[in-house]
């Protein structure tokens, strides 16, 4: 009802059949929700509030925190490292969201539509699993191997390969912009399997008759991809984009394993910066402030995404 009133347009039919109500009302359902609520409270909400409180304190992690008002927040605005870390998040979003989503979309469509048809489902499944492999590799293991590959000097595998072509060795992780580029390439490699798997699952929903009809009308592959595929799997694109954006903003493991924020802070990201303040400098209050800003940014991004998605869906339904 709320949605209908807000939209102020057509009264929509319910999307799902309603769950039969017991005569006793909804009281019994609360019982099932209770464990979840308790966990939410203890694991998420209380730490969240505690973290927010810590942003107004100076605390070394033991004994009582000392209240300092807005000191940490003031420091944040003039802290170059903090701004650098958020600037680097843009690179992470490019590597973990933009490139994997676009490439994943094309790869999924090719696997489903071309490879699947010409070579059979098994080849498609094998390639899909291959793309997904980096997702299941522990990043600590992958990071160590990548470290070997991009080692400086002639020992590194990449430098050895370049040497065959007469290209001099590069200190990949020791200078800019190569350190950020390596990190981005690694993240693309890690991420690519996720959208491929989600999009391929989504493609199962596409009615083959739509493609056949389009083909009969003379549409080429790209036209079919843009008009049919993109339109039908839009919800999955939203989900992938949202979850990957959140992951990119929170990225920690690869930075910790591969660059430790170096060289000279060039690959610092907010989560790693917060970790440094929490655990190495024991500036818990300041670390909490960085973490809180990160949380706020993630929440805002999520709300914007969900609102945009809902708005597009509403428009589509209204247009039906």
């Amino acid at each position, binding site marked *: 009802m709320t949605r209908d009133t807000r939209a102020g347009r057509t009264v929509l039919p319910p999307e799902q059949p309603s769950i039969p109500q017991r005569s006793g009302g909804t009281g019994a359902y609360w019982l099932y929700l209770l464990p979840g609520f308790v966990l939410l409270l203890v694991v998420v909400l209380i730490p969240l509030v505690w973290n927010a409180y810590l942003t107004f304190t100076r605390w070394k992690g033991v004994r009582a925190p000392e209240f300092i008002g807005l000191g940490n927040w003031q420091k944040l605005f003039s802290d170059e490292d903090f701004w650098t870390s958020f600037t680097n998040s843009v690179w992470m979003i490019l590597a973990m969201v933009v490139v994997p989503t676009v490439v994943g979309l094309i790869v999924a469509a090719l696997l489903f539509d071309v490879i699947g048809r010409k070579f059979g489902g098994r080849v498609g499944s094998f390639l899909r699993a291959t793309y997904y492999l980096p997702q299941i590799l522990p990043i600590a293991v992958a990071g160590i191997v990548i470290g070997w590959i991009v080692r400086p*000097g002639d020992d590194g595998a990449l430098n050895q390969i370049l040497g065959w072509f007469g290209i001099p060795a590069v200190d990949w992780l020791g200078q800019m912009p190569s350190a950020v580029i390596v990190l981005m390439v690694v993240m693309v490699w890690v991420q690519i399997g996720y959208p491929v798997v989600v999009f391929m699952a989504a493609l199962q929903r596409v009615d083959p008759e739509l493609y056949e009809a389009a083909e009969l009308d003379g549409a080429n592959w790209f036209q079919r991809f843009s008009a049919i595929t993109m339109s039908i799997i839009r919800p999955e694109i939203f989900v992938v984009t949202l979850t990957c954006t959140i992951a990119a903003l929170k990225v920690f493991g690869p930075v910790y394993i591969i660059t430790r924020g170096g*060289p000279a802070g060039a690959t610092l990201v907010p989560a790693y910066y917060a970790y*440094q303040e929490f655990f190495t400098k024991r500036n818990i209050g300041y670390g909490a402030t960085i973490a809180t800003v990160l949380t706020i940014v993630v929440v805002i991004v999520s709300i914007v995404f969900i609102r945009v998605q809902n708005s597009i869906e509403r428009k589509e339904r209204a247009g039906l």
Partner: protein
Amino acid sequence: MARTTRRTKTLTALAALTATGIALSGCTAGGAEEGGDGQTLKLWHYESEDSAMGKAWAEAIKVFEEETGATVEFEEKSFEQIQKTASQVLDTDAAPDLMEFNKGNATAGFLASTGLISDISDAVDEYGWADKLAPSLQTTAKYSDDGVMGGDTWYGIPNYGEFVGVYYNKDAFAAAGLEIPTTYDEFVDVLDAFVAKGITPLAEAGAEYPLGQLWYQLALLKGDRGFVDDYQLYKNPVDWQGPEITYATETLKEYVDKGYIASDVSSIKAEDAGVSFINGTAPIFVSGSWWYGRFVTEATGFDWTMTAFPGADLSLGSSGNLWVVPENAANKDLAYTFIDITMRPEIQAIIGNNGGLPVAADAADITDPKSSELISTFNGILDQDGLSFYPDWPAPGFYDVIVQELQGLITGAQDAETTAANLGDAYDEGTADFR
């Protein structure tokens, strides 16, 4: 109305359950007070099983159990694990009775200042441990109320030592027709000679501690005990554009420019630098005595030696890590007994004969000639009161700052003056609490 009442009831029940949950979790964390049974020593340390200290502590556990009849409940921890979580664990009843902990203001000093570890001065007097420890080794075991080392109160006992010196590949020197240097000028001449032969002489690592230690060692060439006291013990403000730091920062940049250090060293880790010495790729490695045992085992393809940094009166180094007794320890007396066993000559000899630096060993017990050489170099530094600690100790998190700033320096991203200024800002911010 009925609905509202039901909701209220439900929320009340939810709140009650949550409160119960919190209370229960509180009980688990706080626990009931449990006195020590006098029969179990809960021990944490992070020495690997095959290291000199690991072998010595294993023997000490055996002796302890035989002599006291008590059981040692040993939990193997990693350095990082203890470093990052100790302060939280020590405040609970899960605290061990005895724990190995890193020495220095930002670590053991911090725990001392917060009251999480015990003042063990009475046990030191009772067992006479002070008599076995040289004065510069005592510095890191004693802290002030603010947690600054060199204070009056004993908070830990070190029973091994460490220092930074220079490892030389004697075969590479012989092949190049060079002598092991005894002065700093000779050291630089050797570096030039290797560069002239197309060899990068120094194994280095810009992503971890070795480069920062070389930087501080260069500062120590121009500094005296007063500089060390200002830097480490906050006696006076450190002049970050003064002669010591300026010389260190500019000289380090020169080392890269002149090819003494590879230009692509900023992403290299300590392990890689050590391995390049073991492989014979780099003929010189400035690093700590903690490599010594490993080199004995692995650098077997050539003859090598280690000396204190040539021409330096002051060397990086200190006591080893400390045994500390948490304030919440249940069996403090057992902990003191165990510490005393680790100070016995026979346990100390195990450290000495396995590449470690014992602090209270009987020289006659050290049978391994290579170990004797190391111990005599260390004793030479102790005799001239030459231990000057480590550059990252004064402020929490200063290690990461040093790594990042020196990376900026050697990659040419910033000049020596800016590097020193940035280091100074971080140092001043991190040490403000102690001044």
